[in-house]
């Protein structure tokens, strides 16, 4: 039984990670070949950084990820506080369900419907060529929101419901008491949400593809465009970098969560 499990686990890992490993390996290939490894080189990375279109895409992706995750974190945290304060259970569940729709909705449906909305909205005000930075930003904020809300809400549930009252009791006006007493306590959840939003924004392709115009390319869209021509190892290099960035962020999220869990267990003596 044990060996079966081991073999099964090994198979899962092979199917999951072997393609990535091969891709990473070939991104360091010194020759332009998909079959032969000609030796280690950074040739394709150098080439990538000479390509202005790729660099623009990288810049776009980072700007988009930073702004969308920040905005989503602010709105999402405020929303979580509001949802947490809801007294009527059914109002709470309905709100949560509505909030979660972007998360469970197939990405392609979200993408297409948002594109439709933007184009339709533009028609109404007689504008054209509306798809671009602002539309993709709105789209990214939208699909990031539920992740922020879902990582902040549990933190709010864990804290003493009287924290904010305690601060007010000691002479603190209501809004200030939120920032002095509640916010530092839920900060781990807020940070986790922010990093998660950043990660999702970084690697999103489907929704970005539908809601951005030809003037605003992100890295995943750039990779997709490159594959339409000839597949060259610089695509592997770009994908490898994207993979590495996401991996680092995922580890960061895990560390953040583990740390706040440790704090939580300490509190229970």
């Amino acid at each position, binding site marked *: 039984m044990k060996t079966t499990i081991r073999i099964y686990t090994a198979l899962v890992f092979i199917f999951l990670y072997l393609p990535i490993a091969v891709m990473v390996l070939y991104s360091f290939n010194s020759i332009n070949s998909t079959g032969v490894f000609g030796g280690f080189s950074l040739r394709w990375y150098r080439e990538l950084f000479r390509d202005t279109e790729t660099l623009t895409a990288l810049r776009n992706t980072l700007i988009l990820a930073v702004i969308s995750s920040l905005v989503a974190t602010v709105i999402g945290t405020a929303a979580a506080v509001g949802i947490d304060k809801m007294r009527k259970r059914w109002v709470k569940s309905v709100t949560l369900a509505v909030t979660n729709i972007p998360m469970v909705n197939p990405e392609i449906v979200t993408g297409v419907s948002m594109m439709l909305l933007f184009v339709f909205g533009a028609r109404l005000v007689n504008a054209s060529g509306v798809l671009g930075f602002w539309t993709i930003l709105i789209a990214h904020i939208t699909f990031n929101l539920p992740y922020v809300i879902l990582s902040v809400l549990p933190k709010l549930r864990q804290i003493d419901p009287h924290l904010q009252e305690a601060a007010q*009791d000691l002479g603190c006006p*209501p809004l200030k008491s939120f920032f002095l007493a509640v916010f530092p306590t839920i900060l781990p959840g807020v940070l986790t949400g922010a990093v998660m939003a950043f990660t999702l924004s970084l690697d999103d392709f489907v929704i970005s593809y539908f809601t951005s115009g030809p003037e605003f390319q992100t890295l995943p869209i750039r990779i997709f465009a490159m594959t339409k021509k000839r597949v060259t190892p610089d695509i592997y290099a770009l994908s490898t970098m994207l993979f590495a960035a996401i991996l680092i962020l995922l580890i960061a999220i895990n560390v953040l969560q583990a740390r706040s869990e440790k704090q939580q267990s300490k*509190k229970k003596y």
Partner: protein
Amino acid sequence: MTGTESCIISLRGVTKYYNGEAVLRGINLDIHDKEFITLLGPSGCGKTTTLRIIGGFVTPDEGDVYFNGRRVNDVPPYKRPVNTVFQKYALFPHLNVYDNIAFGPRLRKVPESEISRRVKEMLELVNLRGFERRSVNSLSGGQQQRVAIARALINDPKVLLLDEPLGALDLKLRKDMQVELKNIQQQMSITFIYVTHDQEEALSMSDTVVVMDTGEIQQIGTPEEIYNEPDNAFVADFIGESNILDGTMVSDFDVVIFGRHFECLDKGFEKNEAVDVVVRPEDIDIVSVEEGMLSGVVTNVTFKGLHYEIIIDIEGFKWMVQTTDFWPVAAVVGIKIDPDAIHIMKKSKYSGAFGDYSSFSEELDKLSELEAQPEQPPVEEEIID
């Protein structure tokens, strides 16, 4: 509003509805300076809501709240000269002990050197010398409790509000803290308004006890008055053990129970007025049938350490008697009640609500259930805001 000027806090006709249901009905209460006053009652009786109204966290729907004769209904909590010790302490988990206690003075921009001196003073007061740098998460329940008290007292409040502060502590610690809290109150000579469902806690600490039920005050008095002269069957039943019987006041100092005349010390009732009669179990003597005023059969004996709790069936009514003498089950005995052991109450909506001790064991189970989960928030917590 007579009397509001001489009191530090007065409530006048305070009523609070939640979802159309009254959780407080016309509360009138005067709280004097330097008094240790306890709001006592079962879950959902409105005691916590009353405290939160005084703290400013809940606004009454009707009636007024006065601090030193000034109406404060619309004064927000952060502008009220009171401080609160919350039920689960509500310490700031991201701050250490020092910063928790310094929270109030820092908001008032007190110089840091003064704060440091005061924090030290407060830590001495609550017996936590040297705990400044400790994380509040690493403290035991009792220690967190002390930090919460220090954090409130450092602001020199005129009144300290305490919401079941000992509820989450174990029995032994609770007893120690009771003594300590009383000492702190006397040392600081300020007013304590204390909320609890534990009648023993209320009796042993308070100058004044306010017994509440279903959003109404049932009785206000000293612990002795509350225990010895309960106003109605609810108070008699909630405070200590009581045998509550139907009686008829035939004339002053003469009450009839079970068709027999008993001499008592009460007067001023209508002729032949139906009344509730309270006899505390410790005030009853078990004697031989010949000597007894009433007689019956022992149905249950429980050893309690200090005494035996003996249930005696007298003409269908199960009496509880606490005595140091042992009587076996099935013994036929008489009971003797002195005039000063009988207390007469007017009939109230609670008359008949508390029967005899026939369902004795069930009642005990319910009590021990309550004991087991004292940290559970009272029902009224749900119906705030």
